[in-house]
């Protein structure tokens, strides 16, 4: 059976990236440590996925210092929100069609 794959976004094929976007869709800003804890990822793993999403322009990150500790917060960009919505719609459409 041939199914049209139009609408699926390659950037969100990975579960971790899907998770990062899901969290940022419902929270304005989330810091690195909180995100890591919710997604149950390691530092390096999360950093590489957030970097990938940032390069695509889907999320923006802001680095600052709280005292002497570096603190990175993330938020979804308009472009990222739009892309995620499209991906979500495609997923839902796909599941419906398969029924």
């Amino acid at each position, binding site marked *: 059976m041939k199914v049209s794959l139009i609408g699926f976004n390659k950037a969100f094929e990975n579960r971790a990236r899907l998770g990062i976007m899901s969290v940022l869709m*419902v929270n304005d800003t989330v810091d690195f440590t909180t995100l890591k804890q919710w997604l149950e990822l390691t530092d390096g793993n999360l950093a590489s996925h957030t970097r990938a999403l940032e390069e695509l322009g889907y999320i923006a990150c802001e680095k600052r210092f709280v005292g002497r500790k570096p603190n990175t917060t993330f938020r979804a960009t308009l472009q990222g929100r739009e892309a995620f919505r499209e991906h*979500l719609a495609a997923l839902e459409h796909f599941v419906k069609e398969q029924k």
Partner: protein
Amino acid sequence: MDNKDAIQDLESIRTMMERSSRFQTINGWGVTLVGLIALAAAAVANGLFYEGTDSWFSTIYGNTDYLWSHKTRIAIFGAVILVIVCGAIVFFTSLWTAKKKNISVALDPNMRRTLFNFAVPLLAGAILCLALLVQEHYGLTSSIMLIFYGLALINCHHFSHRLLGTLGYLELALGLADCFVETHALLFWALGFGALHVVFGILLIVKNRRG
């Protein structure tokens, strides 16, 4: 990508949105214990104020001669201590649950949101109660406590367990009903802070077991 993958993706999106927008680790046992303590306290207060009368849970505010008597001061002081102890019980048992689930509560922004949105209406209610007691308007104290407690729960339930909203609406309804009944303040108080907490705590335990 096949159908199973797509459904799993949708499921994981849902879980992540839910987990990141709600503070879920309220301990049901703690809430049940608070309900039992409130019931016991109501029974003690009943014994304290209605010695020799056969009207259980009848009126506490009808006879104002009692007020600001030695006994009443002890009762109010006891009630304040009780509220602090009960808050601490829920807080620390919830911390314990979070620790078991490996969630660091200190980092959870939703716990902060829950606490803040719960505390604001509650503090307003507490100050109003204090003002009424100082001005010797005793009649509506129990309904005001119930109403503001209900509003506090309704206000914070978006950031925490859905059940908190249901409990809040029940407390609010009970408080409003209490406004129209001049007597039986202690009965309403025992229902709202005792019985409802026991039921709600047991519901939480059952829900958390199911995961």
